[in-house]
């Protein structure tokens, strides 16, 4: 019982997740349904895949505001590259070629952010705020304002496909998302790079003194975030079979919100992939549940904003309560 209590005190996001799930199950018709949960997973996947990388970058003590723009760029590359002449004779395999180009583009842009953070020492917020504006410009230069459509329906079929797992047909994207959650979780908790991520964010000076190359380390995490954002661009564009230059506007805000809901400290040094996952899932459930309950759009803004602040207050209350508990003489 005590263990239970302290678990939820320490990780209130799980309690929140359960609370809203119960709430919508009771009050939103069609919410409590296996297929709807699959839907929610797909709906969470775009923000979620980015959030995995964002968690790493934020534990590093950095941030990335440009993920929405990078997402758009990668989605555009993914769709456009399928019709590049070099992939022309590949047939359906052009999709694979384009896939690599999209991931590469994501890593290049993420890497550029990381490189600037590393070499210039300019605050990551500023570097990526600039990139957020500039990369969106790149997207428009590339697309000339037009949306792009994938001629090959196979591409969107992949995005919409399911994998039979026992009696269930689980959407491929949902599986991919869950696998990535597991992988990045292992990366963060089990590998040297992952452990160093905490060191770099928690005490950069100590990390430097211990011989961790802080700059390149941050760079690598931006690279990972870029790659994951690229992947999110791929999955998103494959759900649409298309890409639009305005894709991903405001995504940075929601990704960061999800990660912070999950308890990752903006100052760095503390955070967890599983909880970021819970944070993003909470956002997806809120949106899905409100759709199911037909909450009017105007109120959705207020509710989401209010919940964000409420969770922050709750977290504060709980953590101060925790301190008081442990301080008891």
């Amino acid at each position: 019982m005590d263990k239970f209590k302290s678990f939820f005190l320490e990780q209130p996001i799980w309690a929140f997740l359960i609370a809203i799930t119960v709430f919508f199950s009771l009050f939103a018709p069609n919410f409590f349904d296996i297929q709807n949960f699959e839907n929610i997973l797909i709906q969470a996947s775009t923000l979620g895949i980015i959030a995995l990388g964002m968690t790493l970058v934020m534990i590093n003590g950095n941030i990335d505001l440009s993920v929405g723009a990078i997402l758009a760029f990668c989605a555009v590359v993914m769709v456009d590259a399928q019709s590049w002449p070099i992939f022309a004779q590949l047939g359906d395999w052009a999709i694979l070629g384009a896939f690599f180009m999209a991931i590469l583009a994501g890593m290049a842009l993420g890497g550029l952010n990381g490189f600037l953070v590393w070499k210039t020492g300019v605050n990551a917020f500023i570097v990526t705020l600039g990139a957020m504006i500039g990369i969106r410009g790149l997207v428009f230069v590339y697309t000339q304002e037009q949306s792009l459509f994938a001629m090959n329906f196979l591409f969107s079929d992949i995005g919409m496909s399911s994998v039979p797992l026992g009696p269930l047909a689980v959407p491929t994207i949902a599986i991919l998302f869950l696998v990535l959650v597991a992988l990045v979780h292992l990366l963060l908790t089990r590998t040297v790079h992952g452990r160093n991520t905490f060191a770099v964010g928690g005490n950069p000076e100590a990390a430097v003194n211990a011989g961790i190359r802080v700059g390149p380390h941050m760079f690598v995490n931006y690279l990972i975030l870029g790659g994951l954002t690229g992947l999110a661009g791929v999955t998103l564009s494959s759900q649409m079979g298309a890409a639009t230059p305005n894709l991903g506007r405001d995504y940075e805000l929601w990704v960061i919100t999800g990660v912070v809901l999950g308890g990752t400290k903006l100052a760095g040094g503390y955070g967890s992939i599983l909880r970021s996952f819970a944070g993003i899932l909470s956002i997806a459930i809120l949106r899905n549940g409100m759709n199911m309950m037909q909450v009017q759009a105007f109120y959705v803004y207020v509710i989401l904003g209010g919940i964000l602040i409420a969770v922050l207050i709750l977290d504060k209350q709980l953590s101060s309560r925790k301190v008081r508990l442990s301080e008891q003489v």
Partner: protein
Amino acid sequence: QEDEVITIGITQNNVGIDSYQTTYEQAFIEAANNNPEVEAIVLDAQGDVEKQINQMRDLIQQDVDAIIIWPTQGKAVVPVVRQAERAGIPVIVTNSQIAEEGQQFIASFSGPDNITQGIYSAEIMCDRFTEMGIEDEAVIVQIAGMPGYTTAIERAQGFEERLPEVCPNVELIETQPGDWNREKSQTVMETFLTKYDDIDGVYSGDDNMGVGALNAAKAAGRADEIIFVGATNFAVGYEAMGRGEYWGSIYQSPVEDARNALRTAVAVVKGEDVPKSNYFDTPKITQENMDQYTKPVF
């Protein structure tokens, strides 16, 4: 039972960004409430394609009888429209068309024709120049809608294609986006006025931006020499026409748009024969014929 309610889900583009969309929503809800056969689920994608796709999925999940979609993006929603079609739910596209490739999956399109609107605007502009006798020398600028959105792109496309056909000597010297935002459009127009000593006409993607451009020209004391033509006649545009400051626009009623969409959807569900493209009329409106139209409510 025969008279069972028809559930219709609608996912709109971006309610609240302008009065048109808001009025549309209100009109739609009203029409649905007035129709005892219909139960409506009204959603709004807030301009975000992914959100719209998710809302489509949620509607499919709820197994509604028909889905009306106001595409945030004509191409990106095709696969999910296809998914709905495969789930046996007819999809009615409203207001702005989806891409060619998606045509096969929709039951019907209901709405105005944005390309035609662009064409009409070009014709209004050209006719006016001809009247004034400056059709061979006029130079114009364009203030387009939010970059990357279908409506903005189609209107610009219709205008830019039609203009050289009717007035080959009128020159479109520059296009900049006004983001559907009157203040932004005003700022863009101010710069145009600084940059060009001679501007004879301004085409803007809607009246809201057109009035912004008009504001700028008035402040610069150059409103008299410029012909303003817009699209989607707003109340402000209608009034400015009444004052003789603004030349013409395209009359498009969101109420009609909404009712048309609902009518089409109900017809589809009932298995009636519905044309694939169910355009409603969006006539030209200018200072000359404006008294035939009532002032828009938005």
